[in-house]
C-alpha cells in the first residue's frame, strides 16, 4: 500500500501564522499511524504566494491536497479520510 504523505510547511509565513504549533504532528503522526504515513516539516511550499496569500496560512499538504488554515485536527481528519479510501 502506498504511504500517505504529509508535508507541514515550515516556511516563515506558515510558521508565524500557526505551523509552529503543527510541529507536534511530526511526533504524533508516526505514533498514531506507524509506517502508513510519512510526515515531515518542509521548507516553504510556495502556497503563500498564490491565491489567499498569508491569510489562509498555515498550509499542510496531505498527498496532493492542500489544507489551508491547517490545525492538528484538520490534518488528522484528512489522513483518516485518505486511509479509509484505500481500504
Amino acid at each position: 500500500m502506498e504511504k500517505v504523505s504529509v508535508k507541514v510547511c515550515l516556511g516563515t509565513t506558515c510558521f508565524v501564522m500557526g505551523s509552529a504549533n503543527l510541529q507536534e504532528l511530526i511526533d504524533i503522526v508516526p505514533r498514531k499511524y506507524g509506517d502508513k504515513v510519512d510526515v515531515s516539516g518542509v521548507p516553504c511550499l510556495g502556497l503563500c504566494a498564490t491565491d489567499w496569500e498569508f491569510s489562509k496560512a498555515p498550509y499542510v499538504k496531505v498527498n496532493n491536497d492542500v489544507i489551508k488554515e491547517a490545525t492538528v485536527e484538520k490534518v488528522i481528519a484528512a489522513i483518516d479520510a485518505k486511509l479509509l479510501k484505500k481500504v
Partner: protein
Amino acid sequence: MSINTPKQTSHLKREILARLIRAYLGNNYEEDVRLIPYMMRPQGSEVPFRCCIHKERAILRDRVIAGLGFDIEEVKDSELLSTLADKATKREVPEEHPLTLLQTACNECVPARIHVTDLCQGCVARPCESVCRFGAIKVENGKSRIDHSKCKSCGMCVQVCPFQAITKIIVPCENACPVGAIAKDEDGLTRIDHEKCISCGKCVSACPFGAVHKKSHIIDIIKNIKNGKKVIAMLAPSIMGQLPCTPQQLKQAILDIGFSDVVEVALGADVTTKNESAEFIERMEKGQEFMTTSCCAAYNELVEKHIPEIKPYRSSTHTPAYYTAEIVKKENPDAVTVFFSPCVAKRREAMQNPNIDYVLNYEELGAWFVALNIQVNECEGSEYAKESSAQARNYGVTGGVAAAVNSLLDDDKKAKAHIINGLDKAQIRDLKKFAKNGKCELGNLIEVMACPGGCLGGSSTINAFKPALKQVTGYVESSPDVKDVIKK
C-alpha cells in the same frame, strides 16, 4: 505543560499586523489601512465569528487601531482609519500603557459564580449542603440551589458533588489575572485598572475573544527606518527559539528588513550574572535569608504595586535589557534602540528606560517577515560581533537565571534555588509570606518568572514551548562558559 496553545485570535492579530506593515511600506498607506477590514471580510464573504459582516469589520477596525498603536477606548468611533493611520506617523512618543481593551469584541461573559447544572440529582447524601461553610446551598424541590447573597465562590461544593453537577463559571480574563486588575464594571464591560495591572499579559492570552490588545510600536519603528535613522535591534535571549532558522540567519533577516545592527541582550545578561552573583554573596554574608531575582519585568511591577515589602530582598542588579541598552547607547549615542521582546511587561520596563526607544514583540517581527515574504531559513548567516555565554543565552528559560548566578559561585557558597515558574495568586501569597517572615524555607535564591516556562512562554511568542526550548538549548550548548566570557 500547555504553554502557547494555538489560537485563532493570534492568527487574526498577526494577519492585521502583516497587512498594516505591508500598507505602510506600500505607496497608498492611509487608504490601504482603511481597507484592511474590507480586505479581510470582503463583500459576500463568510462570517466566521460574529453576528454579521458589519460587526466583524467593526471589530477588525478596532484591532487595526491597536496595531496603529492607539488606545481603542479613546479613539472616537467616527474617526476614519485613514486619518488614524496618518496620525500614527506623526506621533513623537508611543502611548504609555501597553494594553488596550476592545469593548466591541468583549463577549460580556457571564459573571463568575458557582452554578448548579441540570445534572444535579437532588441526592440523599447531599455533600454540597454539609460541606458549605456559609449555608449558601440547599436542596429545594429535588435540586440544589445556591443563595448567591451568601455564596463566597469557594468551590467546595464543586469538589464534593458525586455527579460533578456543580460548576464554577469563570470569566477567563479575570481568572487569569494574578492581581485582580481586570474586571467587569456594573455595565457588564471589562476594564483594566492600570494602577493594579502588572502588564504580565496573561489576560491577552486568556481572552477567547481576543479582546485584550497590545498597542503596537510597529509604525513608529518602521518610520525611523524609513527616515534613514540608525536603528539597532536588541534581541532578548528567548527569540532564538522563535523562528525556524539559526541565530545567525535571524540576524541577517533583521538586517534585511532595515535595521543597522543586531545585538544580543545576552550581552547584558552576562553583566547581570556577574553583578547578581556578587550581590548574592554579599547579602548572604550580611545575614539576609534570601534574595529574589530582578530580571522579569512583570515581577518587578508586581513588587512595586503589590508587594513593596519584598523590595529589601529583591536583587538591585539591573536587567539584561538595561545593561545591553546602556552599552549600545554608549557606543551609538545617535542610534534609535529597539528591544525585541517576548512579552507585554518588557514594554513597560523599556518605556521607563531612556536608553530604549521602542519595543517590538516576536509576533510583530513575525508579521513583518510575513508582510515582506522573507524566508528566514534562506538567509545567509551573519555572526554577532560580540560573544555571549551559554548561561546568558539561557536566561529566557525557567531556572536559567538562578543557574547563571550559581555558575559563578564557589561550591561551598552555591545558592539553593527556589524557582517560581509562572506567577499566579498562590505564588504571590507565598512571596508575601517570605517577605513578612524574612525567610524562605524553600531556598535562598528565589527566581521569579511571570510566565510558565520562562520567557519562552511569554504572551507575544510565536513558537510552541517544546520546539522553542529545543532550539534555544541547541544554541546554549554551542556557546562558551560564562567564566570564559567575563574574563575577556
